[in-house]
């Protein structure tokens, strides 16, 4: 106990926590529970919710599809039922405990993909379709004029090998986790569910295609020159074999030789994952879209250079990602507000209203490019205003100095003073203040006291949305009540709304009921 206490009080733990608290948690509106996580461990809560849940057709399709694949894996996996049943039971337990279910339910497509991928090698050979070795190079030449993998792998050097290895062998495996962390920290609450849905389904559909349409990769053409293949053949690390030679140990050769899906060239899930990462990063940080797309094109080059995929495989993976992302964007993803700093800055979640952004619709509202850019330009304007206007609120800010340079007590004082007004709202408030004091816009003067008085009146509830698969807007079948409890938008939100609506028409369908 003493050791635990010492560790918790140590600077290594305290400093990151203080920084996290300062930069993220202080953003949270006092009355908002939207960004909160579940820490309950009572299984009966989940069981009751499950019993009382009203199932939609999309939910039935979603869970039915995933369950049938898990059942298939459960049956074909060559292990004793005495081993498999406890594993499945512990998996189900994680779905029942509210603390873990908030992650597990939304990661179900990812778990299903992983289960299918690692069991694919155990599918009886007689069930598998015949392997194509010529279709992909033929289609590549017919559609793109040449074998682009051959084009790029004509010259190989150790430097190019390393440059290709970094995105393909290192970044590819870590990027989804980094993107997930970014989404959790900086995107509106519920966004990570959408990422889990999109990422999982893209990979799952990709692996299903690979199993149903087994095809050989470019390394096969280089080794066997398009001669007939069979399932007893081993895989090849392709160009990554040169990395093993360069590093002096077996990092990829064994892994690729015994891969569960050796003839799974089409579609490329390396491409699919990278492009999905790019889509989500462009959605969350549109300002750096050139950086994200550079990563995508870099990974494409490395994949072809290492002879792991034809270009048509990369296109297949990317198109799969595009379609799944488009579905997710219009059905699940909340809207990013560029004026909000992080997850804890949000006190309500809005989704895209297709009717209002359809340029052919009579309800269309003209937004330059997209809402993120609009918000971004608004934010820039706000920044300019605050830079040149001596707004009293900014003068009252006691501490721009991080708590790392202050004592604990000072940090707590800062917390008290800044609790009422998160940083992400400061610029918009200054803008409002300026306008209210002296501009031609007659915005209602809205101050902190008014905010507090209005808190009760403006208590808002995000209602359950049964219109989709609901691993995004509605957390899951186990979380209805939690969603109903999600409160949002105290009066501080009203200020933001005023700020936003003063210049931007309401293009979103906010999920709230006043």
């Amino acid at each position, binding site marked *: 106990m003493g050791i635990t206490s010492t560790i918790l009080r140590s600077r290594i733990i305290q400093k990151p926590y203080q920084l996290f608290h300062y930069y993220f948690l202080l953003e949270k509106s006092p009355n908002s529970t939207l960004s909160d996580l579940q820490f309950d461990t009572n299984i009966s809560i989940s069981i009751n919710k499950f019993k009382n849940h009203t199932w939609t057709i999309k939910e039935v399709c979603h869970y039915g599809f995933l369950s049938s694949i898990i059942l298939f894996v459960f049956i074909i996996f060559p292990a004793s039922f005495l081993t498999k049943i406890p594993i499945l039971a512990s998996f189900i337990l994680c779905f029942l405990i509210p603390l873990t279910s908030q992650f597990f339910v939304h990661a179900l497509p990812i778990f299903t993909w992983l289960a299918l991928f690692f069991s694919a090698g155990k599918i009886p*050979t007689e069930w*598998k379709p*015949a*392997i*194509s*070795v*010529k*279709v992909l*190079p*033929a*289609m590549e*030449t*017919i*559609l*793109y*004029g*040449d*074998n*682009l993998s*051959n*084009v*790029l792998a*004509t*010259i190989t050097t150790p430097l190019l090998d390393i440059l290709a290895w970094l995105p393909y062998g290192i970044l590819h495996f870590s990027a989804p986790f980094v993107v997930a962390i970014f989404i959790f920290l900086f995107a509106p609450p519920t966004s990570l569910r959408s990422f889990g849905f999109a990422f999982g389904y893209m990979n799952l559909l990709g692996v299903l295609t690979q199993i149903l349409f087994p095809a050989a990769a470019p390394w096969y*053409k280089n*080794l*066997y*020159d*398009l*001669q*007939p*293949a*069979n*399932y*007893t*053949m081993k895989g090849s690390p392709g160009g990554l074999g040169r990395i093993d030679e360069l590093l002096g140990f077996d990092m990829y050769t064994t892994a690729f030789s015994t891969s569960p899906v050796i003839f799974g060239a089409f579609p490329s899930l390396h491409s699919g994952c990278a*492009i999905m990462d790019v889509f989500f990063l462009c959605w969350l940080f549109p300002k750096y879209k050139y950086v994200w797309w550079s990563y995508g*094109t870099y990974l*494409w080059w490395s994949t*072809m250079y290492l002879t792991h995929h034809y*270009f048509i495989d990369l*296109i297949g993976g*990317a*198109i799969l990602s*595009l*379609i799944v992302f*488009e579905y997710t964007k*219009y059905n699940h993803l909340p809207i990013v507000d560029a004026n909000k700093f992080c997850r804890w800055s949000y006190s309500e979640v809005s989704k895209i209203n*297709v009717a209002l*952004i*359809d*340029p*052919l*619709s009579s309800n*269309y509202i*003209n*937004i*330059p*490019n*997209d809402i993120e850019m609009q918000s971004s330009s608004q934010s820039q304007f706000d920044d300019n205003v605050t830079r040149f206007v001596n707004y009293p609120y900014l003068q009252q800010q006691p501490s721009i100095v991080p708590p790392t340079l202050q004592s604990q007590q000072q940090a707590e004082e800062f917390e008290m003073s800044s609790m009422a007004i998160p940083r992400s709202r400061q610029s918009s408030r200054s803008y409002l203040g300026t306008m209210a004091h002296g501009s031609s816009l007659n915005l209602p003067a809205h101050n902190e006291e008014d905010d507090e008085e209005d808190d009760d009146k403006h208590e808002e509830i995000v209602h359950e949305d049964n219109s989709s698969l609901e691993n995004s807007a509605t957390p899951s079948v186990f979380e209805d009540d939690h969603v109903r409890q999600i409160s949002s938008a105290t009066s501080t939100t009203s200020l933001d709304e005023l700020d936003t609506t003063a210049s931007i028409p309401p293009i979103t369908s906010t999920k709230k009921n006043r």
Partner: protein
Amino acid sequence: MALSTSLNRILPQRFMGVIPLFIGIEIILGIAILNKAGGIYGILSIFTGHPINFWQWLYNVLSIFTLPFYISALINLKTRPKNARKMSLASIIYTIDTIIGLLYTIYFIYFWFSSEDVKSNSLDYAKRAVGNDYAADQDYGLPVTTTSKTTTPDLSSQSASLVRELYVTFATTIAITAIRIYFNLVFVSFTKALLKQDLSDRKYNERLTGDDDDEVEILGATGILAGVHRFIYDLERRSKDYLNVLFN
């Protein structure tokens, strides 16, 4: 105009029957952009020394040429009234691209079966088969001279036969061509609706005398880049005027 009437009959009003056209255009342009990126990798053959003929080189150059127009159209898809001229030019380029793409598909089919496929079939199977634990299907390639010692009927059945490979290749080519033509129709349908709406907006809003906010900026700028912008802007305006005449 006769073209307009006949067009109306075949133009889809929704993407895949249920999805709003603009989402369909997002997907179509997204797929087009991803596809055209292939030109960049293809043109790298200049540096890698991989041999390509003039027609392959031209195909890669054309792919790179179309890329900025598609990207610009996608970025401005939902920005009225700018999107009318952007989509008009992109629509014309997409249609020309479809026609050129079809011709190239025919040429590349000939190219594959006349050189690449023959090249792979004519290799000495026996030399490559020894030491590899796969089997050569006797039905697979025409010039099969021998089979591996490990050949068994069971293993050979695990590989797609030549007929099956040919069937899948042709079926996929036809399916992709059909999808490409459908995408083109969706593109034209969306542009037509957009232009109709643009005309209507101008009719009821006389303030919209110019094309959009970009006009003053583009026409007033100087320099080489500004010249390129002006040229493209002029192309977009002409495309829009041309399609307005064609559709009405």
